[in-house]
C-alpha cells in the first residue's frame, strides 16, 4: 500500500461523519478560566437531564466536574457512567490559539459495553485462577500451587532421582485422647495441632506427602529453594515444636488436654514420581532414608527432633545436638542427633 498519498477529502468527510454519528458529541465552551458556560452545541440534551443556561456554572449541572475547573491543563475522563447508564468520554482542553476552554462529551456506550464482556470474562478467569491456587496451596503449599498454575510443575512419571530430606511428625498420646473424648472435641484438637504441623512445612517449601491419621509425612528439596533441603526441614521442625508449645500453653489456660509431637528427619537419595492409574494419581517419594525418618520419628519423645547423620552434615549452621544411640525396627543400631525443646 502506498502511504504517501494524503487521505482524499471524500474519505475524510465520510470518516468524520461516521465518527460524529457514532460518538454523538456535545461541546461546551467555557468563559476562559471559569466554569461558566459561554456557548454549547451538539447533542448536549442526551448528556444532561437539566437545561443548560448560558452564563450558568457547568459544575451545578455536572457536579462531578467540581474541583476540576477552571481548566489548568487538558485532561480526559474516560468511560464515565452517567445516570442514564450511558458511558461518556469527557475531554477538557484549552485552545491556546483562541484562548478558549472547552469540554467535549462523547458517547462511548457501545464500545464500552463490548469491552465489558471481555473484561468480565478476563476478571472471572483471574478470580477463578486465584481461587484454585488458594485451594491447591492449602494442600501442597503456595510454591507448588504457583508452579502448577504457571505450568512449570512437572514430575517425571518414570521417577526422578534426587537427594531430598524427609520429615515425619506425629502426635504423641493421641490414641488414648481419641478414646476418652467426644469425636467433636477430638476433631477440633486434631485441627489445632495439624495447623501447627502443616504451616511450618509449607512455609519452608516442603511438600506434604501424606497426612496419616494424627501424623504428617513431608518432603523437602523436591522444589528448588534458596536453602538446602535439610535446613528447610530442620527450620520447619523447630517451628512445629514452638507452635505446639504455644498451643499447649493456650489449651492449658483453657483447661484442655495438652498433647506433644515427636519429629524424625532423614536425608538421602530418593526416587520421586507419580504413582497410580490414569484416573487417580499421587506424588510419592521412595528411598531408604524415608523409612529411616519414619523410624526416627517413632523413637522421638515429646518435644524432640531426631535427625540422621546425613541431615546434620548438610545443615549450614548446625546447633549443638545430643548424640544418641538407637535400635530401630528393621534398621538396627544407628546413631542419631537429638534436639529437645
Amino acid at each position, binding site marked *: 500500500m502506498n502511504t504517501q498519498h494524503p487521505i482524499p477529502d471524500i474519505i475524510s468527510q465520510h470518516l468524520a461523519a461516521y465518527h460524529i454519528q457514532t460518538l454523538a458529541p456535545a461541546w461546551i465552551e467555557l468563559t476562559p478560566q471559569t466554569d461558566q458556560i459561554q456557548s454549547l452545541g451538539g447533542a448536549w440534551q442526551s448528556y444532561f437531564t437539566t437545561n443548560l443556561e448560558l452564563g450558568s456554572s457547568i459544575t451545578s449541572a455536572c457536579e*462531578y466536574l467540581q474541583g476540576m475547573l477552571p481548566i489548568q491543563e487538558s485532561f480526559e*475522563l474516560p468511560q464515565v457512567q452517567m445516570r442514564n447508564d450511558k*458511558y461518556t468520554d469527557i475531554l477538557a482542553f484549552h485552545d491556546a490559539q483562541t484562548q478558549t476552554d472547552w469540554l467535549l462529551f462523547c458517547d462511548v456506550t457501545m464500545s464500552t459495553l463490548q469491552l*465489558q464482556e471481555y473484561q468480565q470474562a478476563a*476478571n472471572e478467569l483471574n*478470580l477463578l485462577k*486465584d481461587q484454585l491456587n*488458594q485451594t491447591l496451596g492449602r494442600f501442597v503449599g503456595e510454591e507448588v500451587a504457583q508452579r502448577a498454575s504457571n505450568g512449570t510443575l512437572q514430575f517425571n512419571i518414570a521417577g526422578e532421582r534426587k537427594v531430598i530430606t524427609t520429615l515425619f511428625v506425629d502426635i504423641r498420646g493421641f490414641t488414648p485422647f481419641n478414646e476418652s473424648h467426644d469425636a467433636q472435641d477430638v476433631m477440633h484438637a486434631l485441627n489445632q495441632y495439624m495447623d501447627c504441623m502443616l504451616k511450618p512445612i509449607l512455609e519452608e517449601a516442603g511438600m506434604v506427602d501424606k497426612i496419616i491419621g494424627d501424623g504428617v509425612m513431608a518432603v523437602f528439596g523436591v522444589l528448588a529453594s534458596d536453602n538446602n533441603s535439610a535446613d528447610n526441614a530442620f527450620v520447619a521442625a523447630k517451628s512445629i515444636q514452638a507452635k505446639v508449645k504455644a498451643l499447649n500453653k493456650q489449651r492449658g489456660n483453657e483447661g484442655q488436654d495438652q498433647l506433644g509431637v515427636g519429629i524424625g528427619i532423614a536425608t538421602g537419595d530418593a526416587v520421586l514420581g507419580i504413582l497410580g492409574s490414569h484416573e487417580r494419581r499421587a506424588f510419592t517419594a521412595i528411598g531408604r532414608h524415608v523409612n529411616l525418618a519414619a523410624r526416627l520419628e517413632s523413637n522421638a519423645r515429646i518435644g524432640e527432633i531426631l535427625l540422621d547423620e546425613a541431615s546434620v552434615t548438610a545443615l549450614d549452621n548446625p546447633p549443638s545436638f545430643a548424640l544418641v544411640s538407637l535400635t530401630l525396627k528393621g534398621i538396627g543400631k544407628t546413631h542419631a542427633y537429638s534436639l529437645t525443646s
Partner: protein
Amino acid sequence: MIQKKICILGAAGVGKTSLTAQFVFSKFSEKYLSSMGVKIDRKTVDVDGKQVNLMLWDIHGEEKYKKIPTSYLRGASGIMMVIDGTRPATLEMAQEILQRVETELGTIPHIYLLNKSDLTDAWSINDDDMQMLKNTGNPVFLTSAKTGDNVEASFLHLATALVTA
C-alpha cells in the same frame, strides 16, 4: 453544604462497587459484575452536625495492562484503598497504585479497607501484612460488603477525617 470527593480504588474484584452499593443503597449482590470506567454516586452524611455531600468515585479495578488514569483523581479529597483479604496479591497492587498516585498527584489522605472479612476460611492476609499497613499511619478497617460490617464506619471515618482536617 460541604462537598468531598472520595475515590474508591483497588485491584479488580476486591469489592469496590459492592462496598459503595452497600454504603449508598444498603444492597449487596453475590453476582460479580466487572466495572468499566468510573461510576459516581452521592451520599450525604452527618459529621458533627454538619451535612457533608460525599461524591463517591467507584473506579474500575487496576490491572497489569489497564492502569487507573490519574485524571479520575483530580480534585479528590480522600481515597478508600480496597484490598481483598482472601487475595494477598491485591495488597501489593494497592501499594503500587498509591505509589503512582503519590508520584503524579502528591499525597492524598487514604484509609485501607481489607474487604471480604466474612470469608474467614479463605482469609490470607497475615498479621505481618496487617501490621505493615498499620505502620503506614493510615487507618485500617476490616470490612464485609456482604454483611455490611464496618462499611458505614469506614466511610464515616474518612469523611470525618476530611472535614476536620
